[in-house]
């Protein structure tokens, strides 16, 4: 028999159930593991190139505009820099995944919260740059 929702339930905006949030948790856990795996493959590659070159870790990262060219040249610093950049973006990819998951399931309130998180996190470094920290 199909369950009919009560008037109180009908008034509530649609939200992800606890089971759906559990599914999202597992999805994020897998995403994080994959992401870290990719980072460590890149780091390992950079470290192997470092060992082959001079057995020392790099003392500076590669600026973003020069990164593609230095990667093509097989520069170990470029692989290490790319790994550091990718890992830095990991938590943001997690929030974007939450946003997409909740939007897809009609949970607009949680999706809006995730969007707000992305906005304030983007505003924070701008505020730090203005404040001089």
């Amino acid at each position, binding site marked *: 028999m199909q369950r009919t929702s009560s008037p109180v339930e009908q008034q509530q905006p649609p939200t992800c159930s606890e089971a759906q949030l559990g599914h999202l948790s597992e999805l994020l856990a897998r995403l994080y593991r994959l992401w*870290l795996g990719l980072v460590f493959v890149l780091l390992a590659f950079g470290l192997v190139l470092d060992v082959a070159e001079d057995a020392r870790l790099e*003392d500076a990262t590669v600026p973003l505009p020069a990164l593609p060219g230095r990667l093509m040249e097989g520069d170990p610093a470029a692989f290490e820099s790319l790994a550091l950049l990718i890992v830095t973006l990991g938590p943001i990819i997690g929030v974007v995944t939450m946003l997409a998951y909740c939007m897809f399931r009609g949970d607009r309130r*949680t999706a809006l919260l*995730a969007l*707000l998180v992305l906005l304030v996190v983007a505003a924070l*470094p701008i505020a730090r740059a203005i404040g001089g920290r």
Partner: protein
Amino acid sequence: MELLVELGILVVAALSATLGAMVGLGGGVFMVPIFSAFLGVPIKTAIAASGLAVIVGSMGSASVYLQHRMVNLRLALVLLVATALGAIGGALLVAAAPVALLRAVFALALYAMIVLMTLRRASADPVTSGADRLRLASSFYDPAMGRTVHYVPQLVGPGALLSTVAGFVSGLLGVGGGVIQVPLMNVLMRVPVKAAAATSAYMIGVTVVGSVLLYYANDLLVPQVAVPAALGVFFGAQIGSRIGRHVHGSWLRRILVLILLYLATTLLLQALGVPVPGAR
């Protein structure tokens, strides 16, 4: 930089992350002073490497906690917005703020939290019923207790407001978020300490992303320090989050109280003008 120093960074990062992942902290509170005071890493480089390590640690430990459904994702989003808004205010006013006074106030607030966490038995017992307009109630399986723990976060409005204030002060003082969020969730919002630690472990990674991108842009992220720190933290976080699941909540609270005591005393000494090795 000598190989021995790089090895030292890796070991310190692994130990910091093991402890940090157990109680939901990033571990920067240990890494920055030890890197700079004992391993000869310049303070700005140490802060940048610690920021990156916090992200790796957060992702590593959160992947374990998320797998076991211990992270309260909706609560994390609410508190992230509140904390980051406060941190934006703090970062904008950093030049004009009376930093010594704020350090003293923050230290006293941490001491108050320590007293509450030590004395108040209530923080050990979650509230399992009541109004939940924001649908923040959650549950997780606690292997140490051998049962599923249900809880409904209490006083969400005041909790979010205090998170904003805490974010404001942490934005001014450069203190990490976990050290504030875990006691706040546990003492005020009555979230079980394990769920609070897991939720905080997830949150801290998101909060430092912006800063680390700034460090990268300003050439403060040095691979010689950041790479061993990231590797050490990854393994430490995996170990710490697994231990954290199986340790009894009362032990996690004791560890957290000790860490808060260390941080509060450091801040108070700094406020009084006493030099603290490796302090920011």
